[in-house]
């Protein structure tokens, strides 16, 4: 029996001192992390065949063991597990979502967008799907009708922001360095550097990645997933989290459709398997075919964000005038008192 967790996935290796912690029956030890050994006893060495030192139990729980002894070899065999015996252990209830901090900042971003009537859209896709070209073409087409600003996310370079600025639109570049996605704090920081007009459109181009950006709410109104016909129609099934998080899927590079084996109906069908009811648009940035529907979708979003803001402003004005009306009454009643 494993002395650390009590599971039975342990085999003696012969000499009585060494044990091999067997997970899933794998024979190859990819990680020879040392387990903690009771003070004053010979070191138990166990090899974990799974790279992450964790394993599933029959009751559906998964756990790992600490690796303290591996770092402390040669200095002391006393492990945290042993020290706890002489310390009082307490359990602290937390019940908090791992992404709570990001989501709280995203909520602040969303509130700020609402207060200013800004329609924020988060463009997500794999690298090379044509996000930046779509964004530049959108900026050129809309800049005279709708105030707009752009946040560009890439691991490095400011090439994309420069492309957008060359089209005559304000843009700020976020470089995530080794990061694989934008998070809500990065967007909040970018908003301080960018002039975003009231009742405008904010386009956020996420890092080209069909996995990681799905997990992070930026405070946007919608995630828009872009899938080009050169990528394969089964992407929504291969990367379901991203298409599930999106509210609109754009099938891009439609001009190349005659040259590739891409089943448009299947792609949309797959996207609707992971996100029932997802809206779909077919377009080509290069030929502008289908582009009008996309522009109309954005303009409708801006109009709705503006209308909601006006409702709030009107409601606030109504409340302020109501409060002002009460002021003389209160002054009068104070004087009487």
């Amino acid at each position: 029996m494993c002395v650390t967790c009590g599971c039975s996935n342990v085999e003696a290796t012969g000499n009585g001192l060494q044990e091999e912690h067997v997970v899933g029956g794998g024979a190859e030890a990819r990680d020879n992390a040392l387990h903690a050994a009771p003070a004053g006893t010979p070191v138990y060495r166990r090899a974990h065949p799974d790279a992450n030192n964790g394993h599933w139990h029959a009751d559906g729980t998964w756990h790992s063991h600490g690796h303290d002894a591996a770092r402390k070899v040669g200095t002391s065999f006393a492990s945290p597990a042993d020290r706890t015996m002489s310390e009082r252990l307490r359990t602290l209830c937390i019940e908090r979502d791992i992404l709570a901090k990001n989501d709280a900042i995203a909520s602040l971003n969303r509130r700020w967008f609402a207060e200013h009537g800004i329609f924020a859209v988060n463009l997500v896709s794999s690298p090379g799907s044509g996000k930046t070209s779509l964004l530049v073409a959108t900026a050129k087409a809309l800049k005279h009708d709708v105030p707009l600003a752009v946040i560009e996310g890439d691991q490095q370079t400011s090439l994309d922001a420069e492309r957008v600025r060359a089209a005559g639109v304000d843009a700020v570049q976020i470089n995530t360095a080794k990061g694989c996605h934008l998070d809500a704090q990065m967007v909040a920081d970018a908003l301080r550097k960018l002039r975003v007009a009231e009742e405008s459109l904010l386009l956020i181009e996420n890092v080209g990645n069909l996995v990681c950006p799905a997990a992070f709410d930026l405070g946007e109104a919608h995630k828009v997933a872009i899938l080009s016909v050169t990528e394969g129609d089964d992407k929504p099934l291969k990367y379901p989290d991203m298409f599930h998080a999106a509210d609109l899927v754009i099938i891009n590079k439609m001009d190349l459709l005659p040259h590739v084996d891409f089943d448009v109906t299947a792609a949309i069908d797959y996207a609707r398997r992971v996100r029932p009811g997802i809206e779909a648009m077919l377009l080509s940035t290069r030929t502008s075919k289908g582009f009008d529907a996309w522009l109309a979708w954005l303009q409708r979003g801006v109009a709705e964000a503006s209308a909601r803001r006006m409702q709030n402003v009107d409601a606030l004005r109504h409340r302020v005038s109501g409060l002002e009306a009460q002021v003389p009454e209160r002054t009068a009643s104070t004087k009487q008192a």
Partner: protein
Amino acid sequence: MHELALARSMVDIVETTARKHAAHRVTRIRLEIGALSHVSPAALQFFFDAAAYGTLAEHARLNVLATPGEAWCMPCGAAVQLAKRGDACPRCGSYQLTVVRGEEMAVKDIEVA
């Protein structure tokens, strides 16, 4: 790679609570990870070891309560099991499913000394 950000976020939550209660170190972290969430327990463990280095949670064990995926099937009008996104309703084959369980990524509680 988003697993590193999630692991850091988790360590941040754990350390903040541990410090608030004047704990010296964290011995165990109990998590709830859904089958349809953005992370697998093994990947989170891998990045946790890096994220926790030098923190109060450095030597903590991770215990994961794995929540199975569950969805509401519109045609069936019933809750059904959903092993992964993109699967059909096991009863009627429809994809008109709304996930109701299995997206959890939460720190339940911690054991501290």
